[in-house]
């Protein structure tokens, strides 16, 4: 493999995982934009999304380890999105909503507690070992420009692009999106204008968690394993992506996710994969130092 090919291959691999980061980062950024809460449990929702997919695939796979068809995968994505969305909604309703007026610290600690509860519930149900996720049947791959492209990578790009465009449309072109932006700007004023703030927050959790669930299934099928620990690290990276793009900013989360994936892919290719995780955290620290509002953010990031 020539140098150029290695570069392009790592670029592609990085962008693929970056697309998944972007899907998760959207949930972080939307929730933070509206209620200024770092939803620590968001990474777990992503992980549980993968397990929702896994459970569904298990119903359809003829025998353990058999590949799944594209139809089953699509069904898995929908089920995971719905399940995760519902879960996110319930978490907001039961854990965060009572603390809306409490100090930020209480909500953050609660979020960490929720994250522990979700992680350990999954561990008790599915076990602590890595679970095998069936791969896509008849998934072709091709070599183009000296780079190995798999169908799964294409699918990840297609699905995440579709969802991001869809979200962009909802947020900037519909009445619902307008009320979401209004609540993010000034909840009190929004309430006075007749917007039900609690309803908008609930919908934000529904959408953000649904996107994370889709990301979870894509992640699981792409790497073919899932573990109850995966949510924590991936969630942190997605949060990094959200900060990188400018937290509270939806296009920022998309750009940040892709960029972080890219950096990680190149870092893993050229440095060593052991240091891969340091890259994400290093980026996080650097961004907060040099440009705390992120790449596309317009607000200064010290409201707390």
């Amino acid at each position, binding site marked *: 493999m020539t140098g150029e090919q290695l570069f392009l291959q790592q670029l592609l691999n990085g962008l693929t995982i970056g697309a998944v980061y972007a899907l998760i980062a959207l949930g972080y950024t939307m929730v933070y934009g509206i209620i*200024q*809460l*770092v939803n620590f449990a968001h990474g777990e929702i992503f992980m549980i999304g993968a397990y929702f997919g896994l459970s569904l695939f298990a119903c359809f796979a003829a025998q353990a380890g058999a590949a799944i068809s594209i139809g089953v995968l699509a069904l898995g994505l929908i089920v995971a999105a719905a399940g995760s969305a519902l879960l996110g909604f319930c978490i907001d309703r039961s*854990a965060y909503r*009572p*603390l809306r007026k*409490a*100090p*930020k*610290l*209480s*909500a*953050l*600690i*609660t979020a*960490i*507690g*929720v*994250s*522990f*509860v979700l*992680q*350990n*519930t999954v*561990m*008790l149900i599915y076990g602590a070992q890595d679970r095998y996720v069936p791969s896509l049947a008849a998934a072709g791959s091709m070599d183009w420009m000296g780079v190995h492209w798999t169908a799964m990578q294409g699918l990840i790009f297609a699905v995440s692009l579709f969802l991001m465009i869809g979200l962009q449309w909802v947020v900037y072109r519909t009445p619902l999106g307008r009320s979401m932006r209004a609540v993010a700007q000034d909840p009190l004023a929004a309430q006075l204008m007749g917007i039900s703030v609690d309803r908008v927050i609930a919908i934000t959790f529904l959408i953000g968690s649904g996107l994370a669930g889709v990301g979870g299934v894509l992640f699981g099928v792409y790497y073919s394993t899932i573990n109850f620990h995966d949510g*924590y690290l991936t969630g*942190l990276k997605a*949060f*990094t992506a959200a*900060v990188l793009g400018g937290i509270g900013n939806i296009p920022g989360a998309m750009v940040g996710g892709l960029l972080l994936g890219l950096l990680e892919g190149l870092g893993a290719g050229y440095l060593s994969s*052991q*240091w891969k*995780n*340091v890259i994400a*955290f*290093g980026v*996080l*620290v650097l961004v*907060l*130092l040099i440009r*705390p509002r992120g790449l596309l953010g317009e607000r200064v*990031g*010290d*409201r*707390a």
Partner: protein
Amino acid sequence: MKKQRRDWMPWTFLILAVLPFFPFNSYQIDVMANAALYALLALGLNVIVGFAGLLHLGYAAFFAIGAYACAFLNLNLGYPFWICLPVSAAVAGAAAVLLGLPVIRVRGDYLAIVTLGFGEIVRIVVTNLEPWTGGPNGLMGIGHPMIGRFNFGVDSRPYYWLLTALLALTAWICSRLRRSRIGLAWAAMKEDELAAGCLGMDTTRLKLMALGVGGAVAGMAGSVFAAKQGTVTPDSFDFIVSVMILSMVILGGLGSVRGAIVGAVILSITPELLREFAVYRMLIFGLLMIVLMRVRPQGLFGASSLKRVLHAR
């Protein structure tokens, strides 16, 4: 009133010091020594989070730095434990200040995440710097402390006394510190950073001081930990350790010295009592955090507002 509030300390530590003379088995003594270790860590974090109001999620990193500094000094340079102890405390304190320098500008949630990031970076670096830290296998054969010809050995009892002594010292310093000029400045800064700055307080310096004190306490705890175990491995300093210590501080009540100790004792002994429910341990722990924040956000001995601190004077 003034007398009553301060009287708890000598008596408590006297009782704690004579506890090992009661017929406890060695496992129970070991649990007690661990509780004392966690109490020490909780006191240190309490300075950062409780006194100065800096939400730190990477405190285990300083604990790790202390433990590795002690192991390194002992194994490579042959220093005895009693020299390693203050040196590792100084190293961890300095590391806390150095790592604090760049992130001190960011606040609140952001600070929590950056410190979390730094905590993870420290752990990954320690895992990957094989020549110095032994990589994932860690360092082994760290010498136990000696007093004259008496070797602390593997029995937990002498460590328990050592930790209790350090705990008493730290608790005393913390309660003095809280009522000092610096402590009051921290309290003011925690309530309203902008106002404190406008009144001429050097908030950057105050924050770095809190980090330095907290880091040094963690370094001290880390070196006792290393000497007690005889080995250090990176997985003793997971994110979960940082969260555990933070939960102890919050359970006890942010800013309360008593609270941090009581919180640490409760949270380090409960899992031992729940041994038979081992798999549910973290689940119960998470639920506890959620419920606690709901019913008593200020913790057991919550003295979080400036008014309470001033009244304690």
